[in-house]
């Protein structure tokens, strides 16, 4: 338990910020309080006096906490934190797992179809690249989050935005591909004989729909993985916080 558990508990109770931001802020404050305490010890004060001086120098006014709340509860970051902080019980975890497995199965069905291989859109390749990037990053991040040795709680969250980037980029590429194929389809029909219309339409539908399917699958999968990993990090941060504050002991 931290020697400053009383101060940190007070901040914890007064800070109206969604998890996991609240935990991260209190962890930072705990580190700075220890630095302050060490400074006063080095100045020659005894432990009790050093603790008193460190607490006095710390000082969290209601106004400061209100400003802190305003900074963290607003904007896209605040929204992402509120989503990621839904550290749910086993039911939510099971639902996530079912969704991820379903997405992977759906992707496998589309990728193994003959028509997909014949009419594959060129836009599938950048989407595949994004999927690979998201996969490699997920593996690296899972090792970081779930390994016990050498990890630091403050760094687990860094870089999770890559998954959201892959998700958004996949959607963006799919939409670009959709309009590209649409434009190409109408242009071909002006240039070629009408009897080719049905063949063009069928080929276009397969290209476009399989590209959109893959693009949307990668987008949803990357977002799901982000949610799962963010929740895992939030749980780890929460456990660290409970150790510091000795909550429930």
């Amino acid at each position, binding site marked *: 338990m931290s020697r400053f558990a009383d101060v940190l508990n007070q*901040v914890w109770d007064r800070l109206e910020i969604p998890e996991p931001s609240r935990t991260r*802020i209190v962890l*930072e*404050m705990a*580190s*700075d*309080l*220890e*630095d*302050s305490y060490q*400074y006063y010890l080095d100045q020659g004060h005894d432990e009790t006096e050093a603790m008193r001086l460190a607490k006095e*120098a*710390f*000082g*969290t*006014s209601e106004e*400061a*906490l209100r*400003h*802190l709340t*305003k*900074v*963290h509860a607003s*904007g896209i*970051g605040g929204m992402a934190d509120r989503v990621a902080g839904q550290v749910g019980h086993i039911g939510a975890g099971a639902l996530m797992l079912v969704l991820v497995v379903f997405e992977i199965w759906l992707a496998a069905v589309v990728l193994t179809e003959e028509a997909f291989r014949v009419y594959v859109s060129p836009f599938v390749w950048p989407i595949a690249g994004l999927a690979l990037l998201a996969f490699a990053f997920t593996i690296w991040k899972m090792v970081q989050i779930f390994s016990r040795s050498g990890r*630091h709680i*403050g*760094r687990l969250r*860094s870089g999770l935005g890559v998954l959201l980037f892959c998700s958004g980029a996949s959607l963006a590429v799919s939409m670009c591909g959709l309009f590209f194929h649409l434009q190409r389809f109408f242009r071909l029909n002006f240039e070629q004989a009408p009897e080719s219309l049905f063949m063009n339409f069928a080929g276009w539908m397969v290209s476009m729909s399989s590209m959109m399917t893959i693009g949307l699958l990668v987008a949803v999968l990357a977002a799901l993985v982000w949610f799962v990993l963010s929740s895992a990090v939030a749980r780890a941060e929460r456990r660290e916080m409970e150790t510091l504050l000795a909550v429930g002991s």
Partner: protein
Amino acid sequence: MKGMVQEPQGQPVLDIQSLSRTCNETLILATLASGPHHGYQLVLELEQKSDGVFRFKHGTLYPILHKLEKEGLIEGDWLDDGSKRKRKSYRLTTSGRQRLEARRSAWSDFFDRFFNVVGEEGR
């Protein structure tokens, strides 16, 4: 624009209505310009460099630091400095350096205009 000190490009840099906030932010950006600092180091250095005039309680520093981080002007990271504990250290980003330069110029302009009004005696 009333109550604003303008950059040459016309973008407001100093809002007279929130001088205290911009002053605090500029002080922190300027301190970080010399290198990365932990929260506690920032407070100490500000106090020492200003001979005790600029004193922050740690608690009041966090909203400023986190706001600057959210705006992309500084970047925080947990670092291992060789001791048992890891600390969150902040460093200035490229955008932060640009903002600091703009603020320096704006504050210099502000004080020129201030002393135009109150007079140069005792400056």
